[in-house]
């Protein structure tokens, strides 16, 4: 059917060299486009990370100055201090709790959103994102008012004839603040996974004698796993190292990894130990995430 008038293209023999050239050109092209972001990340992420890594082997002088000499593993040995273990455990428990609560709250919401008509879906998405329009710090301060001993929750309790309730400066307050702060990061990936799911698969399951719950357990949930994994990682990692929320809402005696690291850099003036803590947290987290993704990947 090709009757249109067209000059015959000149015959060019495609040699392996030409092909390799073309491939290299394509790779260069992609690289140039990525360069600004890459440069930014190298300068403000990779280099500082490297500095932290180097500092973790440095020596602390008696006055708290970091001496870039006598490289040693003392800071890493200190990680076995029971105090560090206690703080790490407390942080992990809090991060796991936050992640699980976020997932339990987000999944039904994401499911509801994904099963609405497209217009409603988009509107709900905007509503989920609205909190991001104001600053996280400001919103966390708002929780101080809400949870304080003369806040509305306490007042309501008193109006009902109960005791004044003070949630502020407890682990519960930190948990509430973290769940509030990171909920959208769970909702979005779970919603995205459910939204692009082929719902005829659920119909197929129902058609093949699966009651509603079984269809969810065998089809809907496994197929939304990529979203659940992404959301869990997005919530777990920042909560494990959370600093602002525990600092503003938490009590003085319940130190978490975030404040502990900060205190090493500031109050304790022990940059090598703070650096070693940071490196350790990052390495452990990296290993955990890789395992998590691998295991999640197998279910797909």
């Amino acid at each position, binding site marked *: 059917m090709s009757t249109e008038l067209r000059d015959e293209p000149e015959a060019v023999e495609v040699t392996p060299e030409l092909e390799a050239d073309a491939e290299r050109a394509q790779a260069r092209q992609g690289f140039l486009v990525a360069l600004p972001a890459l440069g930014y990340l190298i300068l403000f992420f990779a280099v500082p990370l490297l500095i932290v890594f180097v500092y973790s082997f440095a020596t602390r002088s008696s006055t708290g100055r970091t001496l870039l000499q006598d490289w040693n593993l003392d800071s890493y040995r200190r990680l076995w201090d029971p105090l560090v273990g206690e703080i790490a455990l407390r942080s992990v428990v809090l991060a796991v709790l936050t992640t699980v609560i976020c997932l339990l709250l987000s999944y039904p919401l994401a499911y509801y959103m994904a099963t609405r008509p497209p217009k409603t879906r988009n509107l709900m998405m905007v509503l989920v994102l609205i909190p991001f329009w104001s600053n996280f710090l400001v919103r966390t301060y708002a929780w101080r008012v809400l949870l304080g001993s003369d806040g509305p929750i306490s007042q309501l309790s008193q109006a009902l004839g109960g005791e004044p309730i003070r949630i502020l400066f407890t682990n519960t307050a930190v948990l509430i603040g973290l769940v509030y702060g990171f909920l959208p990061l769970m909702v979005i990936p779970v919603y995205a996974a459910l939204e692009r799911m*082929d719902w*005829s*698969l659920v*119909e*197929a*399951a*129902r*058609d*093949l*004698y*699966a*009651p*509603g719950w*079984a269809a969810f357990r*065998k*089809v809907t949930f*496994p*197929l939304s796993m990529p979203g659940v994994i992404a959301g869990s990682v997005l919530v777990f990692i920042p909560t494990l190292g959370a600093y602002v929320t525990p600092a503003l809402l938490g009590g003085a005696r319940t130190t978490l990894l975030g404040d502990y690291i900060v205190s090493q850099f500031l109050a304790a003036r022990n940059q090598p130990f703070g650096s070693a803590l940071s490196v350790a947290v990052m390495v452990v987290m990296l290993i955990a995430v890789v395992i998590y993704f691998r295991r999640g990947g197998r*279910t*797909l």
Partner: protein
Amino acid sequence: MSEAVELSGVTKRFGDFTAVDGIDLAVGDGEFFSLLGPSGCGKTTTLRMIAGFEFPTEGSLRIHGTEMGLLPPNKRPVNTVFQSYALFPHMNIEENVGFGLLMKKVGKSEIDERVKRTLDMVQLGSRAAAKPDQLSGGQRQRVALARALVNEPEVLLLDEPLGALDLKLRQSMQLELKELQHRVGITFIYVTHDQQEALTMSDRIGVMNEGRLLQVDDPEELYERPKSRFVANFIGEINLLDGTVGSGGEIELGGDLRVSGGDGLAAGTSVGIGLRPERITLHDDGMVPDGRVALPGTVASRIYHGDYYAYAVETPAGHIDVTEENRAGVQTHDEGIRVVVSWDPSASTVVVD
């Protein structure tokens, strides 16, 4: 003995829109029944109501005499082959096919045995451990079939199952499906918009348009005796000549042509005379055998189609398309010449609406 599927007065409305409008239909046991119509005619909605994905707004739906009412899909003795196949991407072929039996709490050894037998039946025994995305379109189609058939449903519902396949594969799958249905003896209700497919495969066809079931007949009857303009036009090619019923029951066409067939219709009723292009003969010399209806005309165009010629002829009764086989001894007719168009009176059909 009750019918496999029986619909009476089934209506489905979505808000103001009536998708299915008062359908009465009975599909017999072991029948290959097709629901045929253009997209949006309500055929898929009808199928989904039988499957239990939608519930009728009005009317009753029975399977082997049992009223389905608001029974959910998992409690109905039917299985569906979906247009998109809807294979579970996270399960291998074996797990896909065994899913229904697993949900029915059939024992593991029996599941294994039946899954194996069914996969062998669709010639996919060797791919049991593969994931759906490792199979070709035709193979996925077979898995979808196996996944439904392994449950030995009372009725198998198929929603344009061959729509995603290319032409050659579709044609071979048509034959395979028909053969399979004979072998398993299960009632098939097959939804398609492809009239050729419906004609080739079905025992009976129901033609739908705008939510209504217009005609239910076997393929020959449907093709030869369409009862409405829509059915006549939808199935194959047809010439529809405008006519009016005269006082004596004859039908008057343009060019003073009168044909019989208006008996029982009120004088003055406008009707269409349906004529299949392949049932018409062209004569260059005007030598028309006795007993045939004849009409003079001029050949407006001739198009070569390989195995046949397609002519367009202008006549006083209107424009008529004619096809003549390209075989030795059949004379061809040049554009512009005067011809006589003829057909056997039994070859025409009268449509009213």
